[in-house]
């Protein structure tokens, strides 16, 4: 049974050169967005080891958002391309073991796109609400 007061827990890995700054931008421009995400700063979206993502979901995160620089803007040139391949494969992995691939999302958000950061977060939180809690959480989130 889904608890009425349940709020999705989202882990967001944000690249420091773009999306993390984008999140800051959203904050300093006082754009409202849901407070469901724990944002973790990484040096590049390519630094997000697939293991981090699996571990987050195993530990009952309801969704994982990876946010990195737009193609062409990665400070390490190809980090975000690598991430795009890894995320596609990870989604397939999740599907094969019976977890909804939609729980993993990849977005490109630049440092100037505070607005996009907020919109992405809203849309993702809504999508996860439709999916319900992580099935590993046994039907209800931990307090």
């Amino acid at each position, binding site marked *: *049974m*889904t608890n009425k007061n*349940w709020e999705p827990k989202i882990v967001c890995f944000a690249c420091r050169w773009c999306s993390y700054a984008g999140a800051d931008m959203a904050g300093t421009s006082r754009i409202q967005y849901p407070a469901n995400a724990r944002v973790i700063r990484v040096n590049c979206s*390519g630094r997000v*080891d*697939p*293991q981090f*993502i*699996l*571990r987050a979901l*195993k530990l009952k995160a309801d969704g994982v958002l990876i946010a990195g620089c737009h*193609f062409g803007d990665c400070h390490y*040139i*190809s980090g975000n*391309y*690598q*991430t*795009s*391949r*890894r*995320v*596609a*494969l*990870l*989604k*397939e*992995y999740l599907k*094969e*073991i*019976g*977890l909804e691939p939609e729980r993993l999302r990849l977005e490109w958000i630049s440092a100037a796109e505070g607005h996009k950061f907020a919109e992405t977060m*809203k849309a993702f939180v*809504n*999508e996860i*609400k*439709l*999916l*319900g809690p992580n*099935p*590993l959480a046994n*039907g209800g989130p931990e307090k």
Partner: protein
Amino acid sequence: MTKPSLAVETLSICSGCEIAILDLHLALADVLDAIDLKYIQVLMDHREPPKEGVTVGFVSGGVRNEEHLERLKMLRERSQILVAFGACSAFGGVPGLANLHTKDEIMEEVYINTKSTVNPKKIIPPKIVPPMLEELHPVDDFVKVDYVLPGCPPPPKLIAELVTCLLEGREFHLEPKTVCDQCPLIKEEKAVTEFKRWGTDIVFTERCFLEQGYQCLGPSTQAGCEARCPTALSPCRGCFGPTENVEDQAAKMIGALGSIVVQDPSKAPAPEKIVKEVPDLVGTYLRFTFAHSTFKKAVHTPTVKTKPMKATT
């Protein structure tokens, strides 16, 4: 001085591991000189390891039913040193892939649905056999393991090395390296433009298979076999499991796959295309270690789904 003693217990296995012990050939004679072999079902007619205990216990195979669990616990109690012997014991092995399905699904498939089965009354196995557990487990789900000897089966050379270490009271450990580090094939440039299934195109036998776009699990697999498959011109399938500190072998392989593709975005295959080129991802990247991966089994959501919540903005 009494000789150290050895007991080999056999759980959910194919017996390849026991055969690997016999494969020591001449070295087996030396081992038998130095060690008192007390119990091994493929060779001797005993029902259980000796009550007075043994110095070393080898356990091969994973834990699939209640009898296995009982036998595993008995061996643990009766051994001073316990070795998880082979991929099945250490990681669940190939039978661990059954964890993609529930026990009931497996029973139904095997006893009712298979084409070769005639079972009009739909009788699911008699109660007299030991009941199956919900999943297949590697042995370390239940007992403390002192050493892991991976491989499907472990190479005789490593078995001999482990036995020697134990006899001389030395620690046994595998070097923190991957199969690639021991692989003799030529590594040139990581610029894959397409992933292919083995046997569907030309293979250059001197060059790294992965760089040619074939799925070779070398980068995600613990070294120790001296890269015996690539040396024999076959890609590594990952039977040594992940390296130390890596939890999920597939995660490691997916990480590697992300970075071996050609850098030039105009030449790189689209992510969706790569996904199609890796059919059966779990069966390929976790062939031997699904039961020891991050999730260990599929997430079986009950068929009656609770109504989704209404989205709020």
